[in-house]
């Protein structure tokens, strides 16, 4: 395996996704405005009724803010990988598949491209953190970007594997509607875990996205308010997110190398 060939494939795909994102002003405006509107609408609507026992001082806009950050990364992963289905049969990926780089390099290049797009969107939204009551100085940026980067790579490779495996836009849309979006809603992004609701709390515990949201949420507090995270331990968050990233990378590599 020639490392230079692999890097060539990775860098071309990485640069391509970034360039496609940055050159469409309509997409840029949509990408930056949509989460703000979403956060203000839902945050504003629920702030008067939302209370967590033990953390009564926390308003909903504050609670919801880390959830929106993860939503951005998830949406970037979904919209960045659904295009793989067409691109592979009637687009540029055909020429990547027949170039000297490997298919694993293709997975990595695509994951890095999609993740970069997600991180740019998340960064733009994070600039609004003071509006949610988080000063820049109080945020643990290193931890935040560590979890966002891992989460992005995990979700984009997961989305890539799904797209390659399903090979149908309709099927991908269906999975998006019944697994990926509900997965985000049930990750603690929109509401905290309620142990009285057995099924729902089990789903939230088994949902790897919960631990990405947890990791991101912890970055905003030196003392995390009780009851706002799904797991009680930062270490568990780290282990699960690392495991999810490793699983997604492995799955995408297996799928893409096995299929012809």
């Amino acid at each position, binding site marked *: 395996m020639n490392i230079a060939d692999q890097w060539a494939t990775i*860098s071309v795909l990485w640069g391509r996704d970034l*360039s496609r994102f940055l050159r469409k002003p309509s997409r840029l405006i949509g990408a930056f405005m949509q989460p703000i509107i979403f956060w203000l609408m839902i945050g504003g609507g629920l702030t008067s009724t939302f209370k967590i026992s033990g953390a009564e001082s926390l308003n909903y806009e504050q609670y919801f803010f880390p959830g929106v950050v993860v939503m951005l990364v998830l949406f970037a992963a979904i919209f960045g990988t659904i295009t793989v289905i067409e691109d592979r*049969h009637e687009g540029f990926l055909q020429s990547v598949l027949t170039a000297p780089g490997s298919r694993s390099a293709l997975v990595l290049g695509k994951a890095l491209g999609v993740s970069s797009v997600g991180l740019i969107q998340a960064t733009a939204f994070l600039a609004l953190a003071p509006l949610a009551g988080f000063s820049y100085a109080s945020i643990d940026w290193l931890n935040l970007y560590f979890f966002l980067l891992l989460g992005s790579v995990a979700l984009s490779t997961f989305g890539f594997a799904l797209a390659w495996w399903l090979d149908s836009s309709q099927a991908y849309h269906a999975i998006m509607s019944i697994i990926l979006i509900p997965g985000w809603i049930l990750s603690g992004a929109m509401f905290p875990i309620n142990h009285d609701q057995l099924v729902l709390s089990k789903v939230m515990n088994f949902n790897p996205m919960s631990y990405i949201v947890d990791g991101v949420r912890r970055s905003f507090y030196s003392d995390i308010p009780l009851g706002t995270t799904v797991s009680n331990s930062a270490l568990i968050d780290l282990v699960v997110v690392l495991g999810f990233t490793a699983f997604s990378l492995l799955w995408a590599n297996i799928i893409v190398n096995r299929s012809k």
Partner: protein
Amino acid sequence: MSDTLLEVRDLTVHRGDLEVLKSLSFEVKEGEIFGLLGPNGSGKSTTFSVLMGLLPALSGQIFFNGREVEGGSKDLLRSMGIVFQNPSLDQLMSARENLEMSAKLYRLPRKKRQDRIEDLLRFSDLIDRADERVSNYSGGMKRRLELARSLIHDPKLLVMDEPTTGLDEGAFQRTWRRLLQLRQERGLSILLSTHRPEEAAFCDRIGFISDGKLIVCDTPQSLQSQVSGDHLNLKLDQAETAADLIREKLNLEPIVSEGQLKLTVEEGHSLIPRLVELLPAGSISSINMTRPDLGDVFLHLTGEQLAEESV
């Protein structure tokens, strides 16, 4: 033109229980244009997919420059330029950017990259619109860019899957002028698949492929000589009455189809004046004579029609 560049030997491919390629063998010589002619579904694209490593073969061998290689092996991919049947361009990017991405995929050094891109933009007549988004291009321009992209790493063999699908007559002729120029200037070998007889006629040799099997392999001239006779096509009033008259007086068997008369005869040019004399004055609106094309030869040898599409 005597050394073999690519040899495919006894290639067999299964899709599920279906045998889609049945011990297919052919070779492409250096500097040769070799075409696989067959209808859709005959196995042409499958053959190319195996060469590109996009589909596994059950059995068979591929030799490139006398050395056995795997389908899709890096050595083979570096030596092949590929024009896909489906578009493979990034529509949001310009021609220059598309070529740049391909040049990077093949790791062309930066200095050489820029020169090569300029050359190819000029070769494909896209230099004036090189920085425009590909989605604004016409079908012919996109096809030219596909060809330019496939040449970016200076391949020895150009593999083209139905390269002129969807092109009008003008674009079709221009594409072939370019391909012949490439062969002449660079000694490039070309392997192409097509279902168009008029395209196959440009090849040095053609293999007829039907139902996953190679039926025959020869030069277009030699294949065409297997079907004799000229086709006469008459547009006229009262075709049935005219057909009876021809049967009675000339002892020929015309076919009446959609108000037209069709005749296959030896030396059609000498029959035309006799037909004009025989049939009532003013009843013939046109007479058209054609030599049998490779589609007729294909039908004669395989019993199968190529697709209707033609330029």
